[in-house]
């Protein structure tokens, strides 16, 4: 048993040595990414924002599809509260043609996205944030010191959307931040589609 926990500990250690990306409390980098309307979008463009709901998502992933309408609802509910949704597709479209920029444009206009849907072509932003899958959410709070990560993880605990009593992690986190409180749950895990990284 001791050996087991040692192994587990070392596994965690070696993982943290490799794992890049943000933890709660870290300052998140801004970016300049191409939106489906052809313009570039940065967090700094949102002068009056109090924070952001940054969602790494994509077209092809069934889990991203399962959450799509909930991402759209988040945007509708929180844009006016100055927590806009910023969706970013980090996938390599050569691996998943469905995730190409043209298909992103198509998807966002068909579904009438009310939020930017950005292409992380170099995958640098996904790597900086430590996104590993889609969908993968980072809730940021704008402070005098920059955009601070306050929540990382899933949108809720019911991917399939069958549980009326689901815990809405992202809503809870943003609601807490809007009341100048810290979110109760700051990190969660969820099954998702691994981001397809470009081979270097």
């Amino acid at each position, binding site marked *: 048993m001791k050996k087991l926990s040692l192994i587990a500990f070392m596994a965690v250690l070696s993982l943290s040595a490799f794992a890049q990306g943000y933890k709660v409390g870290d300052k998140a980098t801004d970016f300049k990414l191409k939106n489906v309307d052809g313009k570039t979008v940065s967090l700094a463009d949102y002068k009056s924002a109090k924070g952001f709901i940054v969602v790494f998502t994509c077209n092809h992933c069934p889990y991203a599809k399962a959450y799509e309408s909930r991402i759209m609802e988040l945007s509708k509910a929180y844009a006016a509260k100055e927590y806009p949704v910023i969706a970013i597709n980090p996938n390599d479209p050569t691996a998943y043609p469905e995730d190409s920029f043209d298909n992103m444009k198509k998807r966002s206009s068909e579904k009438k996205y009310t939020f930017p849907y950005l292409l992380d072509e170099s995958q640098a932003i996904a790597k900086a944030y430590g996104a590993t899958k889609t969908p993968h959410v980072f809730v940021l709070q704008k402070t005098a010191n920059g955009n601070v990560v306050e929540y990382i993880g899933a949108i809720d605990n019911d991917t*399939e959307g069958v549980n009326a009593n689901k815990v809405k992690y992202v809503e809870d986190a943003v609601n807490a931040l809007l009341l100048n409180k810290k979110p109760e749950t700051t990190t969660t*895990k969820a099954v998702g589609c691994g981001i397809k990284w470009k081979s270097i």
Partner: protein
Amino acid sequence: MKNLLIIVMLLFCSFTGFSQQVKPIKFEQLRQIITSNNDTTYVINFWATWCAPCVKELPNFIQLQKEYKTDKLKVILISMDFRSKLESSVEPFVKKKNIPLEVYLLDEQDQGSVIDKIDTSWSGVLPGTLVLNNKQEYRKFYERDFTYSELKETYLSSKK
């Protein structure tokens, strides 16, 4: 505990008679498998029918069980597909691919809550594979896909 083990074993036996069937499994039942104190090496692959790299590597898990059929090795597939897809997607898939392994579907609405219980190093990305032998106090989780030679190497390294 012993009773539990017997139940699990019986469950296994009944399965070999009904290959191609995909049984929903609660985490608690899975926990009994991954904590069973016997000298069997379990290679437990977490996959989904929609996950392209998962589907691609499935034949390697079949091959591993086949090549080491005289070893105390048990290869188990755990589908992370939605429960509602069991009859419509997962069972037809397993039938079509003629998969001669034990296949379960993790029947938990809140799959996220069991990720850490399966392994804390797992982010939830598929495919993921757990290799363990509790008697040997061996346990490793791999959040990656495998070629056959990589998988074989991974299994053999558990025996060193």
